[in-house]
């Protein structure tokens, strides 16, 4: 890791939507006026006291924030090193951090007078959060989901339908998250007048990466206050899983300018980096342009996008948010990876030691936390983002572990 030398890591993006060389607005002309008007609406909303008051009110009384910062005592004893805390965003309404961002975007869509909401989803958590808030505010909701993911995340498909959303299985390409995003973009190009595209992660064209980050930063702001209250000082390290990277940037961002805090982003290594079957865009990819932004991508020598592989549908994406790409290049965040097997082991460990069944996504973070913690002294304070609960994954895990007996 090269030594960080910048005065601040929190000045991006620039006015053209770039984090260093990453980010930007690589979209079809049809969409350009739409993302410019979205940017204008968001810039106005984020400094409007009434918008911020609405956000705070719904976060407290509908989402159930603040989420607890929980001392994982038995996992800490098991590791015998760092004192491990969980930021429990799995306790949010709808069971993951995704709702923090969706709330912000739906309130924004209402301000803009949009009546139809579209979203892409991988694991289904973003789709469920979007369907939930559309139900709450009486908006039409269409969710694009890869046909492969529809199959492996059935409980979430059912939840979205119960909430009144239309779930469209995407049959193109690899039939996973990237294809769902292509299809959502095709919908948006077609339905420009009444439709708001609610992107679920810190990717896509500017202003999405910055806007989604801002909405997710409630995680890190709370964690900061809570740790100061609990321990009287800031944490020494942060660990979060990364697909597109929204839960991770939400935790990391408020701490980026605190020198000395070690930050770890954990990508999905699938069957292992050397197998070629993984979703680790930073470790195994290189810069390219997809879905409206320049970032690290998994692709071949001709610039054709390759399929990602992960047991976790939420991490199964061949790219990563552009701000992570930049934080990787400047060296502020350490990006590491965990395999399917390591995540499955962590899933079981956390369930048995803490009585918390984590989603497969944060299981990747827990897997690396369990590796790092033993090497740290007992006064080292570590925060792991427990960004989702594992109910949706029990069938996938049962299949891999050979049943529930």
């Amino acid at each position, binding site marked *: 890791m090269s030594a960080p030398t910048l005065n601040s890591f929190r000045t991006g993006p620039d006015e053209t939507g770039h984090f260093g060389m990453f980010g930007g607005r*690589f979209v079809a002309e049809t*969409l350009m006026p739409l993302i410019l008007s979205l940017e204008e609406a968001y810039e106005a909303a984020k400094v409007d006291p009434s918008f911020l008051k609405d956000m705070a009110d719904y976060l407290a009384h509908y989402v159930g924030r603040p989420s607890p910062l929980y001392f994982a005592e038995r996992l800490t004893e098991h590791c015998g090193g760092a004192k491990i805390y969980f930021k429990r965003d799995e306790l949010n309404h709808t069971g993951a951090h995704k709702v923090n961002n969706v709330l912000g975007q739906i309130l924004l869509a209402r301000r803009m007078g949009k009546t139809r909401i579209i979203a892409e989803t991988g694991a289904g958590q973003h789709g469920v959060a979007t369907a939930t808030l559309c139900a709450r505010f009486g908006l039409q909701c269409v969710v694009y989901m890869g046909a492969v993911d529809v199959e492996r995340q059935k409980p979430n498909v059912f939840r979205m339908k119960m909430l009144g959303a239309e779930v469209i299985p995407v049959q193109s390409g690899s039939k996973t998250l990237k294809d769902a995003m292509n299809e959502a973009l095709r919908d948006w190009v077609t339905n420009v007048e009444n439709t708001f595209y609610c992107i679920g992660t810190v990717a896509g064209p500017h202003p999405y990466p910055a806007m989604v980050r801002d909405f997710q930063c409630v995680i890190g702001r709370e964690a900061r206050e809570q740790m100061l209250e609990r321990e009287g000082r800031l944490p020494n390290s942060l660990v979060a899983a990364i697909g597109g990277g929204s839960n991770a940037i939400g935790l990391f961002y408020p701490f980026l300018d605190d020198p000395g805090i070690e930050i770890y982003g954990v990508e999905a290594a699938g069957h292992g980096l050397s197998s070629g079957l993984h979703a680790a865009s930073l470790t195994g990819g290189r810069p390219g342009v997809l879905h*409206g932004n320049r970032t690290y991508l998994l692709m071949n020598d001709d*610039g054709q*996008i390759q399929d990602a592989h992960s047991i976790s549908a939420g991490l199964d994406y061949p790219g990563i948010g552009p701000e992570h790409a930049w934080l990787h290049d400047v060296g502020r965040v350490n990006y590491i990876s965990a395999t399917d097997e390591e995540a499955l082991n962590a899933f079981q460990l956390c369930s048995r030691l803490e009585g918390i069944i984590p989603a497969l996504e944060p299981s990747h973070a827990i897997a690396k936390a369990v590796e790092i913690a033993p090497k740290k002294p007992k006064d080292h304070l570590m925060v792991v983002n427990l960004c989702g609960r594992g109910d949706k994954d029990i069938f996938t895990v049962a299949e891999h572990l050979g049943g529930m007996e």
Partner: protein
Amino acid sequence: MSTRIDRRFEAVKQQGRAALVTFVMGGDPDPETSLAIVKALPAAGADLIEIGMPFTDPMADGPAIQAAGLRALQAGQNMRKTLAMVRAFRETDADTPIILMGYYNPIYVYGVDAFLLDAKSAGVDGLIVVDLPPEEDSELCVPALTAGLNFIRLATPTTDEKRLPKVLTNTSGFVYYVSVTGITGSAIADYGKVGAAVARIKGHTHLPVAVGFGVKNADTAEIIARSADGVVVGTALVEAVRASLDASGKATAGTAEAVAAKVRDIASGVRRVAKAAA
């Protein structure tokens, strides 16, 4: 500086008609057949040729062109082969403009400077890159203009009066008006609006305006030709490729002729409209 595209639009105008711009996917259904298809286009009535650079994630394309791109990739098409195809076409046709159309990533990965050098020397005249709006002009548009290639921009129904000048700055060759908000292969709901849209764009530029999306046959081509300087057809041609394939998806002896027949049909519609020669 007059380019091959400028000269072709001028020549067609002198003939008192609109130009026919034909899109086919490079390498679809295989490199050899694709070259045969492209070589047959001018005689069938194509005035300008757009060759698609296949990409795995064509976010502005409908099912037909998505499928054409996948067929090409599965048959081993890549950027080098697409450029080689242009070079082979140029050996027998020095006048028909060739425009490469696609998405930015394969160009970015090839390397912008290397791509422009190779494209120019292969005989490419212009580029249409769907996901490079004016906001990203420094990426490829400005270097392409410097290298002597036309950069053809898309204007759409969402491109309003305020934005149109920005879209037209740095545009050269012609303006491609996308007649619907939607993906390729979408139907035009109201052909009556196309004329007004073309007139609006012509109020801002002296460049020819070609209209795409929604041209399926001679009749729809004729309607568009009444108001536009050029008629673009793509989905109907890649559908002709698909329909000519055998059960295993391979080219048949009739594949190139199937596309040529479709082009002849559409060209007849375009040529029914007499325009004032300037």
